[in-house]
């Protein structure tokens, strides 16, 4: 993360701001006035002089630059790393970290006025699958119930939820869990990705990084040794209410009854920079978009399809519109893509996705409609479009 900071245009904010609502309010007003969201470093956080908070670090250009992926064909390069690069991670120890017994020292943020309180939105959850021994990483919102307890929401469709159930089935009551913030950016991309259960997420992160990661192994699931903050705890059978929470699509989720994490230890780097994540804004959507792009590309490649490029625009939350560019748009590619990515609502397959509105306006297209199913219930339709360039136009020059 520190390397990425050095590659970024950092907009420092020295105003004294409270992590409870004031930072997100400042960002919101800023974006309304200026029209975009830069990477901001909040250096004067009320009540937390030992911490700075960086917001919106995941910009596509910086992210790809950091992991050594350059050029417009970054999806192909990421897919190549995901499918073909195998790298073993190393282990190490941390030195000079502050140790606390509770969350009270951390500048945890409340993001939206009607949320129930402070939330962890940018911490990666690390769990070990008791069957395979693989580490599973993921992003889950965690409500700060008090300084010793978090309530973590894991959607039943997620692998983490299934892993927790495996522990419960063996009679385990306290499941070791780690939440970490900061560290190498490829870990964030791997954690956001829908990795198959037969792969270790840290291994995928190393593949995407094209370089080994150094991990801290303790009595808890692993975390990168250069994390800014590491929380060790136990996921208990107790459940508690979390929510309302401001979802990435811009509305409040009413909340859930979810498992409680008892905090055992909090480690933070000297002069730590906590990475914040404002749900539904550029950083989170960029991660979602990148993972959708390279995972679908990898899948289509592994099924023998030749694809030039894939884009999941941030304007559609990085996941509800998928554009596939290939030299021969056809229904087989469309069907395979729709089968693989069930969240996306519209897929367009075309020879050119850079000017998709023009492609759709000038050329003929074929439409395929299927059911859009969410939580096992049909919600409406999904749309697949194959653009057919029947005529080879000679484009005018000016």
């Amino acid at each position, binding site marked *: 993360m520190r390397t990425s900071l*050095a*590659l970024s*245009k*950092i*907009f*420092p*904010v*020295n*105003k004294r701001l409270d992590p409870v609502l004031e930072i997100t309010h400042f960002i919101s007003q*800023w974006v309304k*006035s*200026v*029209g*975009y969201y*830069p990477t901001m*470093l909040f250096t004067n956080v009320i009540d937390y002089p030992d911490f700075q908070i960086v917001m919106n670090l995941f910009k596509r250009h910086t992210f790809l630059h950091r992991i050594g992926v350059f050029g417009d064909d970054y999806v192909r390069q990421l897919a190549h790393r995901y499918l073909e690069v195998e790298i073993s991670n190393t282990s190490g120890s941390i030195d000079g970290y502050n140790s606390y017994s509770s969350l009270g020292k951390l500048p945890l943020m409340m993001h939206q006025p009607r949320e129930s309180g402070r939330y962890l939105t940018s911490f990666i959850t690390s769990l070990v699958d008791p069957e395979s021994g693989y580490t599973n990483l993921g992003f889950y919102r965690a409500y700060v119930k008090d300084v010793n307890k978090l309530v973590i929401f894991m959607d039943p469709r997620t692998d983490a939820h299934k892993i927790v159930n495996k522990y419960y089935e063996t009679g385990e009551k306290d499941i070791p869990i780690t939440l970490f913030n900061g560290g190498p950016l490829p870990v964030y991309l791997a954690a956001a990705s829908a990795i198959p259960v037969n792969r270790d997420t840290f291994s995928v992160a190393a593949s995407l990084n094209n370089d080994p990661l150094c991990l801290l192994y303790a009595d808890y699931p692993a975390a990168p040794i250069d994390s800014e903050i590491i929380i060790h705890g136990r996921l208990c059978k107790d459940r508690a209410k979390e929510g309302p929470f401001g979802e990435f699509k811009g509305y409040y989720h009413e909340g859930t009854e979810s498992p409680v994490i008892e905090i055992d230890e909090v480690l933070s780097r000297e002069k730590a920079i906590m990475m914040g994540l404002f749900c539904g804004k550029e950083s989170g959507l960029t991660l979602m978009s990148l993972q959708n792009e390279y995972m679908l590309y990898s899948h289509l490649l592994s099924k023998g399809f030749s694809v030039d490029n894939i884009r999941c625009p941030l304007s559609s939350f990085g996941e509800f519109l998928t554009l596939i560019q290939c030299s021969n748009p056809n229904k087989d590619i469309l069907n395979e893509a729709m089968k693989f990515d069930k969240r996306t609502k519209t897929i367009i397959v075309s020879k050119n996705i850079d000017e998709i509105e023009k492609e759709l306006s000038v050329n003929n297209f074929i439409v395929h409609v299927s059911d859009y199913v969410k939580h096992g219930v049909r919600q409406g339709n999904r749309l697949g479009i194959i653009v057919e360039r029947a005529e080879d136009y000679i484009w005018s020059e000016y």
Partner: protein
Amino acid sequence: METFTWQEIDGMIYSIASHIEKDDIDAIVGISRSGLIPAVMLSHLLDVRNFSILDIKRTDSNAINSKKSEPHYQGLFNDLYVKNKNILLVDDIVGAGETMKLAREILNPLVQTLKAATLVVNESNLKDCTVFDIVDYCGAIIHGWAIFPWEGKHLGGNL
């Protein structure tokens, strides 16, 4: 090398202005040449109409990574707005901080209070000091050469 867009310039100006109490500023001093552009933008945003120009010459050419000579004081214009006033001094970029240091040396004996702002700090050029040892307000921190939109490089030489 970092290329800035006009939208990013707007953002940095907004950010600097949001840190400043405008009632605390009587006049703005822009360092010529490129400091004048953010200085004028700040004068509008903060509604400070008293404006002065401090001419300090530093670079010998417009080329990227061009060699810089010692900052050289050329003159102070509209100095009546400066004397015994609360001043905001503005430049476009701080590298090693030599220009800003000289500007402070020139203005400090004249003014009542002096605050300094810069759009950008190239942190990799700072030696034994932090950004806020040199300026009070900074729009962005980078690690490399900055290209600003008023240099016209994005226009691609199509004239």
